[in-house]
């Protein structure tokens, strides 16, 4: 419940930051997204550009090097949608540090914040990554197979994680593992004993994002590296589900906009194909489903912003985003027909990327 009135429009500040993110996408991402996908990598200079805007580090308190801005799930969702409308792989990489940062700000102790936050503010983009997914059939984020066994003042972690973004260069790994009292989060630092990084994974989509398997073999961390308890893990999942819904909204919007522009120009039978109801009705459905996906995302983000429990809202937002982003990007390919099937047009990439929305867990945070 909220004391504030309902509001469906962005504030001036929100609009300004949205425009900034949108401009960045216009300037460096849109024309290069295809090449990044082909090259299967994101040039560092693009990540630096986002870092310079301070989107990830703005809520870090000034004493740790940030700007001490209020943490704002709604604004983060807005930014993630904009970046994802440019490229999903880029959006995940660019905002990856937020996953660690927001979790620490939400549930970390002063000591943990002091230890882990400053490196993100030291003048260049730093990857802090997240290791939640596991390569098993029936994987469920709330029930990780990775274990964390308490031994004295330490925890011993064992397990296999997959789809860990930028694992080759990350300074921190936010790892989910099952403890005696339920699922929890741990920060494991780069180079820790028992932490090994695998080969680059070959995925259906988001080619440009380097993801890897990570093995934890008797990996020992101090109990001071455990971030909060099971409630903190639950909130981490809520923030992440909303973030992934925002990414789904961005990918879907990109496909919708491309198909819409195409339908206005593509001539067949002497007129534009948008004049045909069979095409126009797909476009109309894409239009309101993109809006609906965004509204569900913003609703979850608003609930979080009011410090309320967003379990149901975040769950439904992600479920809807998974189903609908698949449907919308499918329509995107269909509107272009044969041209949608070849890689000269981005709709095939959106379609591949969108499959990740319902599958990937924990890769971003609002």
């Amino acid at each position, binding site marked *: 419940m909220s004391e504030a009135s*309902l509001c469906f429009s962005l504030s001036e500040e929100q609009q300004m930051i949205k425009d900034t993110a949108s401009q960045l996408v216009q300037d460096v991402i849109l024309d290069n997204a295809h090449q990044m996908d082909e090259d299967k990598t994101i040039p560092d200079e693009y990540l630096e550009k986002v870092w310079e805007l301070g989107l990830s580090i703005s809520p870090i308190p000034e004493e740790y090097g940030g700007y001490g801005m209020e943490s704002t799930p709604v604004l983060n969702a807005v930014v993630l949608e904009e970046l994802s409308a440019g490229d999903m792989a880029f959006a995940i990489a660019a905002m990856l540090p937020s996953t660690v940062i927001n979790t620490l700000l939400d549930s970390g102790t002063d000591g943990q914040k002091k230890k882990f936050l400053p490196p993100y503010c030291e003048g260049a983009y730093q990857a802090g990554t997240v290791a939640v997914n596991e390569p098993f059939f029936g994987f469920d984020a709330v029930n990780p197979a990775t274990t964390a066994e308490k031994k004295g003042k330490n925890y011993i972690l064992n397990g296999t994680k997959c789809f860990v973004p930028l694992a080759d260069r990350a300074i921190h790994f936010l790892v989910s593992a099952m403890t005696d009292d339920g699922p929890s989060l741990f920060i494991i630092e780069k180079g820790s004993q028992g932490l090994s990084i695998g080969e680059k994974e070959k995925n259906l989509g988001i080619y440009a994002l380097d993801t890897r398997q990570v093995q934890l073999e008797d990996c020992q961390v101090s109990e001071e590296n455990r971030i909060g308890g099971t409630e903190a893990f639950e909130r981490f999942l809520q923030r992440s589900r909303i973030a992934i819904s925002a990414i789904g909204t961005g990918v879907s919007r990109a496909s919708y906009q491309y198909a819409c522009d195409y339908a206005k120009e593509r001539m067949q039978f002497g007129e534009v194909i948008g004049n045909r109801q069979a095409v126009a*009705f797909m476009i109309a459905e894409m239009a309101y489903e993109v809006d609906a996906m965004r509204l569900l995302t913003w609703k979850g983000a608003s609930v979080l912003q009011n410090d309320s429990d967003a379990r149901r809202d975040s769950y439904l937002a992600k479920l809807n985003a998974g189903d609908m982003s698949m449907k919308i990007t499918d329509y995107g390919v269909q509107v272009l027909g044969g041209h949608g099937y070849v890689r000269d047009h981005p709709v095939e990439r959106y379609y591949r990327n969108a499959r990740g929305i319902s599958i990937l867990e924990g890769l971003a945070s609002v």
Partner: protein
Amino acid sequence: MINLATPQYIDNMRTSLNSLAKSVLRPIARKYDEAEHEYPQELEMFRSMKVMGGGPKKKPKTDDSPEKSSKPKKGVNLGTVVTVEEMCWGDAALLLSLPNAGLGNAAIAAVATEEQLQRFGDKWAAMAITEPGSGSDSGSITTTARLDGDEYILNGEKIFVTCADRCDVVVVWATVDKKAGKNAIKSFVVEKDTPGFKLETLEHKLGIRASDTGTFVLDECRIPKDNLLGSAEVKTDTEGFKGVMKTFDNTRPMVAAMANGIARAALDFTKEKLEEAGVDLSYTSNPNNLSSIVREFYTMEANLEAMRLLTWRAAWMADNEQFNNVEASMSKAKAGRYATLITQKCCEILGPLGFSRDYLAEKWMRDSKIMDIFEGTGQIQHLIIARNVLDLSSKELK
């Protein structure tokens, strides 16, 4: 600043309206579904309640400073869609049967002169637009109004008039000049006992049976000249007709809200039965690990949430004086279609309970179907949205 978390005052409103719907409408929902054309006397208590808003006309704003207009307000349209959802959770057909709350009342409240308000303000007013040959294409109506001294003479046939039997007056759309096209379409208040004005038949319908839907024949029906609503002038541009169509920007979110209310009734009942059977609905497990029924249930809940947010957005925009033509159509396109699908699926999940008339689920499936039809079919909504986003005219995208 974006805030879509339900405000406390709306939550309170929903709670109290829901208990009204539960105690007054729900208990008689089945009774009047079976007794199709009988007037629900129990609704008399609503005659003076104005649950559907319908207050005095809004005064034109004098203070137009940007600070003031950028502030979100507790608006009439948002209040109305919240009310409509709760009442339709009780029963949609009964909501359509509330005395003195017909669509005609809304039209009269919007444009009537002081003198007309005196005469018609306290009457139950139905709305007659559709004709046998004119459905979604309301610009093609053929009912005529011919000026003769101080009277108009009306001729034609009107079908699908809601509250046809119970109303006191009917707001009839007719053309004053067939050659002048849409601009010549005007609305006229016709009193029930006027000679030449006859209620021909009452329809037997798939759903919303408690709502009386009828056909009127107008045969040399004479009404005072002063019963014309709005201006008599036939303008040469299409602004006049567009003004008439603009009413839909307010009424379509209302229909979407009706769809939301019925869909929620079906989902609430299904949830109750699932939980009685010990099914866990705690929004925890990965969707891949759910049973098919639970997965379907969550998907329907997400869709209902989407329907409601699209509806609230359209209403909120109207309250904040933003042009909401496309958003109104989006809310109705989504809600009309998905309420139909949700109520079907709930019957499937409920099994025998979904096919038996001992329960209301089958009724909700029948009732919801009209939501994708009246106030513009789902197809019309898709056309409106597509024309807008593709920047095509109604001649280009037919």
